């Protein structure tokens, strides 16, 4: 868990680099880079959440709120105040951090079911604010006209350009997360997961470590929200509802919550499932999600990432 092997990262990087080039030449998967933009956005969120859930053992059923805070910060500040989009991303992250610290400090003292309830309630309250403060957010109808992103006159105006932008951000987040895992804070987190009492006895500041991770995951979610807003140019509250918080948990459970790779695999798989493979089920796709999640919790508690190890074990026996 502590050592992150280099080989899969290299393979992943080459895959991400070449994917649009290959997709362009195969008409059947021509639209896949568009899906991969969403996969990358989900990835940003699940990386942070896997750190929170898998490493620190703290559940969050309200992370869609931070996603929404980033998206609405970008949406409102660019359309109503004409601020620079990059500045808005920073402001959104700062706001998410502030909210995470204010909500996280008292919440993270809670454990198990109480923490689940607190984060659930927090997510719902924030979503209601998005719906009700129509003067700012456009209410349930949402808000449009959010500009795209550009840097030094270079505009990320095509799907392929945005694809690279999103995945560069994912790569940065990935490396930051690995650094965090390997830092003293990361070791503290694993100690907390194993036993809070023992960790505390060894002099680990438990609440500080938990808040750092919570805030870090909130920042990633907020950046993801901003990227979503600038890509879609339109946002509405239902994107950031409790169901989406639960979908994030599905992604992490699907991929495996004990490694960051699980978050990456789960997000990419989920994006393809929801936009491509389960699309024909229409609104009934939710039943399939439920069944998949049920199967995974029963038969694959380590998620898909744990599958190769499990097969290897079977074969050796």
């Amino acid at each position, binding site marked *: 868990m502590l050592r992150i092997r280099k080989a899969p990262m290299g393979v992943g990087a080459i895959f991400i680099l070449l994917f649009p080039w290959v997709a362009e030449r195969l008409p059947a998967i021509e639209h896949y880079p568009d899906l991969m933009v969403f996969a990358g956005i989900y990835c940003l969120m699940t990386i942070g959440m896997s750190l929170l*859930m898998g490493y620190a*053992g703290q*559940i969050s*059923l309200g992370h869609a709120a931070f996603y929404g805070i980033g998206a609405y910060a970008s949406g409102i500040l660019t359309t109503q105040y004409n601020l620079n989009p990059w500045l808005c991303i920073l402001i959104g992250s700062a706001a998410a951090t502030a909210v995470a610290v204010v909500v996280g400090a*008292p*919440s993270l*003292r*809670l*454990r*198990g*079911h*109480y923490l*689940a*309830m*607190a984060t*659930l*309630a*927090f997510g*719902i*309250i924030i979503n*209601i*604010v998005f*719906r*009700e403060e129509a003067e700012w957010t456009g209410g349930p109808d949402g808000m449009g006209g959010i500009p795209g992103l550009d840097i030094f006159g270079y505009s990320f105006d095509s799907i392929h350009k945005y694809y690279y932008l999103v995945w560069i951000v994912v790569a940065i987040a990935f490396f930051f997360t690995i650094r965090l895992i390997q830092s003293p804070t990361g070791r503290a987190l694993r100690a907390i997961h194993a036993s809070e009492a023992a960790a505390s006895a060894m002099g680990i500041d438990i609440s500080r470590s938990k808040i750092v991770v919570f805030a870090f995951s909130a920042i990633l979610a907020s950046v993801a929200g901003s990227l979503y807003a600038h890509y879609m140019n339109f946002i509405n509250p239902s994107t950031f509802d*409790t169901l989406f918080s*639960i979908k994030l*948990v599905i992604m992490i*459970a699907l991929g495996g*919550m004990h490694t960051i790779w699980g978050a990456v695999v789960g997000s990419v798989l989920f994006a393809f499932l929801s936009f491509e493979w389960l699309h024909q089920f229409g*609104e*009934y796709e*939710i*039943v399939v*999600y*439920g*069944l998949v*999640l*049920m199967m995974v*919790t*029963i038969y694959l*508690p380590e998620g898909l990432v744990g599958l190769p190890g499990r097969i290897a074990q079977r074969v050796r026996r």
Partner: protein
Amino acid sequence: METISAASQLFQFIVTGLTVGAIYAMVAIGFNIIYNVTEIINLAQGEFVMLGGLIMVFMHVTVGLPMILAFVTAVLLVTLTGMLLDRLAIKPIRQPSVMTLIIATIAASIVIKGTAMLIWGKSPYDLPAFSGRTPIELGGVIIQPQYLWVIGFLVVVTIGLTLFFNRTILGKAMAACADNPDAARLVGINVQYMVLLSFALSAAIGAIAGMTLTPIALMDYDRGAMLAIKGFGAAILGGLGSFSGAVLGGLLIGLIESLGAGFLLSGYKDAYALIVLLLVLFLRPSGIMGNFEVTKFKRF
């Protein structure tokens, strides 16, 4: 004149708040029954309420069974669903932890909700009130007869459960599992069976809540999640595991919601109770009436 109407308006909000609160209290009691035996928070609890309402509508309105017969069949079918939930989604999990069990019950609730959508579609259904819809007027306050049914059922359920857990062998055996599963197993109690029973009982109470609620507020496939969240909130507010706490928490959440929606911004109706809940959690993490034993986790 002005003050009288304001007062009667206040009482009207209190009456509706207590009625909705009684429903939340029943959902919270359902949470507590399963929690006490297994320490699982069954987030599919709201789906039992939804199923209870919709199956009753199907039996009474579509099939044409008499009210009482429809009521009984609906309770039985939902109870069966609760037992299936335990056997298909919870029991097979080999390494239970708070997190995997929360995820498992969420998965189950998604499946139940989706199946309900397949069967009944998305439109809301109405059910005739149990004893007509002629409102009773009491000093300017209008009381629907159905309100009395809701509160009556809450009273019956609470008294029934208290008697069950204190007076019957089966109830005492369940309470013993809640207290110490290992010791219960040692004296020959079949803990697995008690877990199954807790799911059955809690599903039945959820169904009752749904059937009494439907004539007041209609019922559709999508109602379960919010009811579960409010009921969970009520259980937490009263302290997880405490039945008197669940009743108090439920009524309190109903009142806050009704008064908040009536006198403040109505769009924030769902937020008021949750804000109060968050504040309570932050100031007193074990709820109003709970003890502090919230971290240990039972395994079967």
